Structures are given as C-alpha cells and as structure tokens.
C-alpha cells in the first residue's frame, strides 16, 4: 500500500555560531493510511525537528541536504510557501501540540480561536470564505460544535463561548484535538500531546485519539519519549537516535524482539524491563560534531570498524516489516 506520508533519507543541517549542526541524518519514516506511527527517542534526537520539517516551519537558514517528504506523492520540501499555507498546513495536515496550557491564547474565547482556522481554510471540502457574514459564522459554529461533541468535551454548545482557563488540562487538549480535526485533515502530527497530563487523563486522550483515527479516517504521526504510551497507542514505531532512524517496525516486534543495540539499551533502561537499573554509558553526541558512521557506535558494545567508516542503512529483517540500521545484521537472513 502506498503510504500517505513518507519521509525518505531526510538530511537536515542548521548553521549555528559554532558551525553547522547536523540535526537529522537519513531519517526515514513511513505512515500508511489509517495507522498510528510512533516516533520515539530521547531529547535532542530530532523528533521535533522532524515535525517542523514536515510542516515546513524550520528556521530560514536550514539546509535540506537530501531526502524527500512525500505527502500523497507530492514532495512537501519543494512546495512554495503559499501552497503549503493554503493546502497543507492546518488543512491536509493537522497538528496537536505538546502543551495544552500554552497552545490556547488566554484572552480569546475558545470559539474565536477555533473559528480562525475555518476562516483561513474554509469548511472541509470548501474554499475559504470570501466574506465572513453571520450565516457563514453560524454554519461554522455548527460544524465546530459537532467536532467538540466528537472529542467529548462536556457542553459543546457553551464551550465556544468560554475562555481557555475555564477548562482542565485534559479538556483543553480535547479542544486542541478538535482544532486539529477542524478541516478534516488526512494526517495528524501529534507532538507528545499527553506529557503534561496525569495518567488517568492521558488514557482518556489516548483512547480518544485511537477512536478518532478510525472515525475521521486519518493517519497519525505520534511523537513521544514514552515506550509505555507507544505500547498503548501505536501500530508501528520508529526509533531515533541522535538524528538517525535506527529501527522501525510493528510496535510489539520492536518492544519484544528488539534488534538495534540502542533500542535494546533504551528499553533495558525502562523500569518495567531493566534487569539491573544501569543506564547507557556515555553521552548523546552533540549535533555539531556527530561521530562518523553509525552515531551510536561510541556507546555501543558491539561496535566494529565498519560502524565508524560507514553509516548503516535501514534494512528489512524477516517478514514482519521490522527494519533496522545496524551493521550487526548485514547479510543476516532470518
């Protein structure tokens, strides 16, 4: 099946005062229709840069060194800003931010903020409004109330008239999910949408996201650092380390039959799995001076000469769609 969103060999660097920072180095992620793909990694691994690259909101000086971001066959990196604004961002690709407390403007009513999305993009399947009269507004409001019902906000009718501070964190996140869905996007990017929430609220939101993916026929890229959340929500997962995709595949395969030494070490740090709580020796390398070849080799127990001289490419392992970028599995057939 042709993926809705496919990121291939994306390589991005951002010039800084101290030299060029290699933020992403050959990142590949595939998102198929109707699936939830988790992107997991520790802080600084480039998860958020990946999202920015898809939305085209990287800093101006950013250099795309190679790679493509294919969205329904079109390379988002080649599209001009006007097209991105009109057709892609907020419309075909929705975004759920990390912190529901920061994402809503405290001085405007929720309704005003949600209407703004529709005023810019129009109702799903329609062009943006030529003039924004009462009739249009009433129609938009009805559409929004329907969405708020779908995300299970209590009292959807009055919600539009209320201010963000009148909602709890979980409810704000629901409002933001409704905002992401407002134009019926095909893909939703979620950037750790539950980190600021308590576990019981987190479960409510994760269940909601899972239901909405089916109901609204969207696909979701879910950024997180929590393998527990991945186990609860995602169909597939892609693990990143220091800007490189190291392993990807179906969630259960990655969690139970981990192949890449980094993924193994990381899952080995999880209190649910750790034999002896130890951590991974060494530090995450700075993107200013990343080690050559596989970026994990300085911390890897299995490192060999080839790991330094050559960056391992993602290769398929077996029949279960698991792919791993590690020299250890060169020529391995299993």
């Amino acid at each position, binding site marked *: 099946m042709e993926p809705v969103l496919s990121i291939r060999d994306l390589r991005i660097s951002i010039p800084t005062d101290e030299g060029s920072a290699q933020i992403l180095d050959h990142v590949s992620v595939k998102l198929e229709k109707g699936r939830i793909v988790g992107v997991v990694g520790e802080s600084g691994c480039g998860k958020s840069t990946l999202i920015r690259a898809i939305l085209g909101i990287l800093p101006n000086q950013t250099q795309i060194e190679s790679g493509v971001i294919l969205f329904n066959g079109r390379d988002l990196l080649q599209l001009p800003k006007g097209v991105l604004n009109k057709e892609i961002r907020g419309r075909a690709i929705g975004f759920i931010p990390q912190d529901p407390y920061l994402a809503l403007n405290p001085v405007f009513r929720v309704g005003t903020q949600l209407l703004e999305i529709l005023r810019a993009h129009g109702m799903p399947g329609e062009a943006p409004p030529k003039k924004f009269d009462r009739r249009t507004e009433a129609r938009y409001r009805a559409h929004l109330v329907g969405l708020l019902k779908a995300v299970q906000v209590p009292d959807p009718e009055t919600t539009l008239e209320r201010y963000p501070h009148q909602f709890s964190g979980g409810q704000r996140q629901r409002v933001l999910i409704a905002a992401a869905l407002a134009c019926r996007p095909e893909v939703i990017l979620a950037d750790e949408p539950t980190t600021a929430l*308590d576990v019981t609220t987190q479960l409510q939101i994760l*269940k909601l996201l899972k239901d909405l993916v089916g109901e609204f026929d969207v696909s979701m890229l879910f950024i997180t*650092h929590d393998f527990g959340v991945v186990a609860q929500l995602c169909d597939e997962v892609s693990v990143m380390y220091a800007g490189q995709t190291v392993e990807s595949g179906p969630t259960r395969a990655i969690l139970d039959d981990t192949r890449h030494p980094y993924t193994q070490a990381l899952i080995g740090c999880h*209190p649910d799995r750790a034999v002896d709580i130890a*951590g991974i020796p060494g530090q995450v390398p700075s993107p200013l001076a990343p080690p050559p070849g596989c970026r994990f080799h300085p911390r890897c127990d299995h490192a060999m000469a080839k790991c330094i001289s050559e960056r391992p490419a993602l290769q398929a392992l077996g029949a279960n769609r698991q792919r791993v970028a590690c020299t250890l599995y060169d020529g391995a057939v299993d």
Partner: protein
Amino acid sequence: MNKSLLELINVVTLLGGEKRFLAPARPAVRAVDGVSLNVEEGEIFGLVGESGCGKSTLAKTVLGIVRETSGSIIVGGRDVSGVDMKQARILRNDIQYVHQDPGAALDPWWRVGHSIDEALRINNVTDARERERRIDEMLDAVGLDSSFRLRYPHELSGGQQRRVGLARILVLRPKLVILDEPTAGLDLSVQATVLRLIRDLRAELGLTYIFISHDLSVVERMCNRVAIMYLGRIAELAETQRIFSEPAHPYTRALLASSPRLDASDITKTMALEGDPPSPTSVPSGCAFRNRCPHSSEQCAAERPELEPSDRPGHIVSCHRWRSLAA
C-alpha cells in the same frame, strides 16, 4: 518490624482560608485530609497520586515548611507537631527535601560549590576546611568530581543537575530524604542512572526515602511500600508487590490500568476513568472518589470510608466496598 522513623497520626493541613482586606475570607482547602502512616527506617516509601492530590503538601507538612492544622507528627519517637514554623523546621533537621526541578532550585548565578556550601553554612558548619572536605566527599558520592564545584547550573546536563540537587541535600547528613518526582522530565537512560544512584546512596549512607512519583513503573521498581493518595486522603497503602498484584481500592485499580506500561494491552478494551479529579474546594461527601467510581453505592455518598486493614498484614484500604469487589 523495623523501627519507625516517621509517624503521622491523622494529619490535616488546611491551605488558604486567610482573611482578605475588605472581602470575605476564602474557604480553606483541605489539602491533606486526615493522613496516618508510618515510615520505617531504611525503606523507600512511595507516595503516588495525580496532580492536586496533596502529595506535595503532605511532604511539606512533614518537612515543617507548611504547618499542620491538626494531628501529630512523630519523628524518631519525638512528637514535633504543634510548634511554630521556625521551631518545627529546627526539630526536623533530619528530614530534607529534594526539589522536583533542580534546574529551578539552583541559583543560576551561583557556582555549584557555593550552592552546596550555603546549605552547610546555614546549618552552622563553621569550619571552612571542613565544609570544603564535605562538599568534595559528597560530589564524589553522587558521581561528580570536585571540578564541578566551579561550574554553573546551566553548564550541567539534566542528570548532573539532579546529582547536584541530591548532593546539596545529602551533605547535611539527613536520615529521611523526601524525593519529589526525582526523575520527572528525564530521558529514560538518564532516569536509569539517577534511580541507580538514589538506590546506591541509600545503602551507602543509610538513608530512608519518601519517594513521590506518578510513574508507576518507577515506583514498582524502587519502593518497598506504596501509599496511593486521592484528594488529600490515603486510598490504599500496602507493600509494593501487594498493591501491584492485588489492588483493592477501585482508584488504585483504575490508576494501574491507565498507567502506560510496556506490556500494555490494547487500550480500546481498557476502561478509562471518567472526568477529572474534582477540585479540592469541592470534595464530594462521603468517599472522595465516589463520583468517578464505577462501583459507588449510596453508602459511599453518605459515609466517609475509614482506612481498614485487609486480610494481609500491613495492607490498609479505605473503601466501603472493597470486600465485595475482591470477591
């Protein structure tokens, strides 16, 4: 049974309620509402609950920086409750608190050594050479070398900041350390090293911990006993293994089911608790959990459940219906 280091008997802490100028007084909030527990020497005592459940207020009450309204606090066999704030803190010198976010707790203009030194100076260690020796010793114990004395907090990584936060407290040689979310916001691999350090230091320095956390994976791994709090009250308290294998209180069960574990099954089948925790200003009558509890009955609305022992020693539950639910 081990010696009890800290005992709380029916501690209540009211917050707010102060008189305002030309305005009616705000109603006080029962942030800690009749908590009784004891912490034994050498154990890691877990305190678990959602935000706003009163775990941090309880910790501050134990420390003496927030005054308890009623109840007694017994530290090492001595009743230290009912005295004024300053006295309370002096009496509880053996208890120290490690701040949740050491990045915010350390003064950005002070070198790490100066920050640690301050704790010693406040506690009347007057000999400068003695202070220096103890700082070096403690930095070494938390896995940093003495060159870190000259560093500023912003030069440290998240894990190193936690280590400094720990060093600054442990240099005072406390007996009981309250760790407030010691691994919140840390990456998995850094979290593992910090947890390891916390465990090693306990053995090395003979410490007792109160471990506040909302991460059940970490709590299961680290703690000997766990208390589950809901809206200022203890819902259930037992040995860790018991809590995780046979939770009795419906809230504990819901919490365990919601927690993101690696072996989590398909969440579409998991029941999620409905709604948000009620605000402490409007706690429901009777059992505080009854509005969200799938098993609540009329008795739950009418009568507040008291903590009662279950069939296992050391396991206490406050629920009217746990017996019928367990069956």
